[in-house]
């Protein structure tokens, strides 16, 4: 089943968000617009807007208000992707050339900053100060997480808590905040938006762990980028950390460098797959997922709750 089937009752509103995203990136500069559109049309799950809309259903739902938060969060995610591709010197994103590959680093930087500005402009339509305090705090944490990721590259003596803090900042917080801001923008009670934040956080942690597993178990075609990219770039993910419990495998892993050949990387991937690291990673992902489902137990039973539950389960089982 496709993810979007799970929330088909939001179809009209999702289409509205998609149209609004195209409006948001319109610019006096044709190149900025073209580059932004290039990224927008590469697709993506739009999981953040979906969480915003679903969470907003717990309050006084008005698509004309809520769409500003939904569009803003997707644009912020897009801006971070454009910048990340410069950071990672990435050629492909979702199987298409990145902005920096299609044009160059400078165009990517201008486009990323432009999209970020548009995200903020959209967000300022939400006139709830708390929403801005939460989102801005998250953005700062996100940056700190990215900086820490650079700092931790090829650092093989790190611990599980380093990894968890990193993925919290890198992925989980923005999903958590998407859920919370949806609820805040529709005036849902504090107890509900805090619960939704926890739900989003746990789903986000589970999601990122699975992403990190797939980096080692999927094909280049499925990923839209070379398999093992994280490992190659020195990002120590959960399966890699677990695999290092096996001394012979650790010996192979710690030799990975930027200069390693594709064959060497493939050999390390196979060594990791030969341990129980993938299985243990799935188990931790499932623990976060279970916590997310527990969070939902505290929310009123309705169609939205069922949908959030289905999305969480879908994420737990996704294969690419």
């Amino acid at each position, binding site marked *: 089943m496709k993810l979007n089937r799970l929330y088909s009752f939001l179809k009209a509103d999702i289409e509205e968000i998609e149209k609004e995203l195209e409006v948001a990136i319109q610019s006096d500069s044709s190149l900025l617009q073209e580059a932004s559109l290039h990224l927008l049309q590469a697709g993506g799950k739009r999981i953040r807007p979906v969480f915003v809309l679903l969470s907003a259903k717990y309050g006084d739902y008005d698509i004309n208000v809520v769409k500003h938060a939904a569009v803003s969060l997707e644009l912020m995610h897009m801006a971070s992707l454009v910048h990340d591709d410069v950071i990672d010197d990435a050629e492909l994103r979702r199987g298409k050339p990145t902005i920096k590959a299609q044009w160059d*680093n400078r165009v990517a*930087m201008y486009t990323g900053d432009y999209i970020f500005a548009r995200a903020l402009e959209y967000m300022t339509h939400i006139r709830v100060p708390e929403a801005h305090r939460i*989102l801005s705090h998250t953005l700062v944490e996100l940056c700190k997480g990215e900086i820490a990721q*650079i700092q931790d590259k090829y650092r093989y003596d790190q611990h599980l808590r380093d990894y968890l803090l990193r993925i919290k900042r890198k992925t989980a917080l923005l999903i958590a905040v998407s859920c919370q801001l949806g609820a805040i923008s529709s005036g849902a009670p504090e107890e509900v938006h805090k619960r939704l934040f926890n739900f989003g956080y746990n789903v986000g942690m589970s999601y990122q762990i699975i992403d990190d597993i797939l980096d080692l178990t999927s094909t280049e075609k499925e990923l839209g980028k070379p398999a093992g990219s994280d490992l190659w770039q020195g990002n120590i993910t959960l399966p890699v950390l677990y695999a290092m419990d096996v001394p012979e495998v650790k010996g192979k892993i710690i030799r990975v460098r930027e200069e390693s050949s594709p064959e060497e990387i493939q050999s390390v991937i196979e060594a990791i797959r030969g341990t129980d690291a993938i299985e243990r990673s799935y188990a931790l992902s499932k623990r976060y997922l279970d916590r997310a489902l527990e969070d939902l137990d505290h929310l009123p039973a309705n169609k939205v709750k069922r949908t959030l539950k289905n999305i969480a389960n879908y994420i737990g089982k996704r294969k690419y």
Partner: protein
Amino acid sequence: MKFIDCNHQANIIHQYVEEQLHHSYLKEYIDHPYIDRDRIHFLLLPFAEADGDISLEEVQWISTAMLLQIALDTHEKVTNSEFDPLKERQLTVLAGVYFSSLYYKILAETDEVDLIAILAKAIKEVNESKISIYKGDHADITALMKTLKKREASIISNFFAFMDDSRWEEVVSDVLVYKRLIQERSSLEETETTTFLQALAKVSLPSALRESGLLKKKSEGHRHLLSSLDRLIEGVKAAVHRNMEDGGLIAPNLKKIVLELLPYAEPREMTKLYAEEG
């Protein structure tokens, strides 16, 4: 506000911005961001007639405009060169994003949603101008200068709009353009190319001259470009003087800053002569 008080306020803002910029890991790899004191003074202009110190909230407003400028300047350092060290490039990208997220965080904490919006508009305008200069899509020098003015002055102009005080906009914009042109001139003299110099060459020199090598000192292209820059500098300088003479509202501290800046780049005799010869 007396000039001495303005200086004191500028110190407070400078210090506040310094504290925000501090990041122990970033400072190991990237140059310490440049805090332009003149910009702080310009941002203080709407408060020039106030008695006493400005409030902490106002310090934060001005500091966020500074942080944003620094964030965009930091991203301008990301080049297309394959020879830039990878880690420096990565951290330069992240530093810019970090500084701009601080602007949002500080304003969100003071509940100043309107200023968040108006400065976001400024980021948008600056990046539209930057990409336009980078692609060199200007019909003539006038159009290029208009874009340059937007690139240099959007943040301050939008801040003035937030303060509902447009008295200083024209003269400050011109002074910022003037400062930029002086920097561009230095780059050219040091045979460094910039996106602006390339755009200027495109609208002011015939292609044969551009191809002769703009960065080779004493080449015809180089001399022509230097002469174009000097004419632009003189033009902007004259506009600033006119503005200062016409506007009776020029604050003493602004006048002092401007007068200190303006004589800085008298064109050298050689390029002056060259300009006259056409």
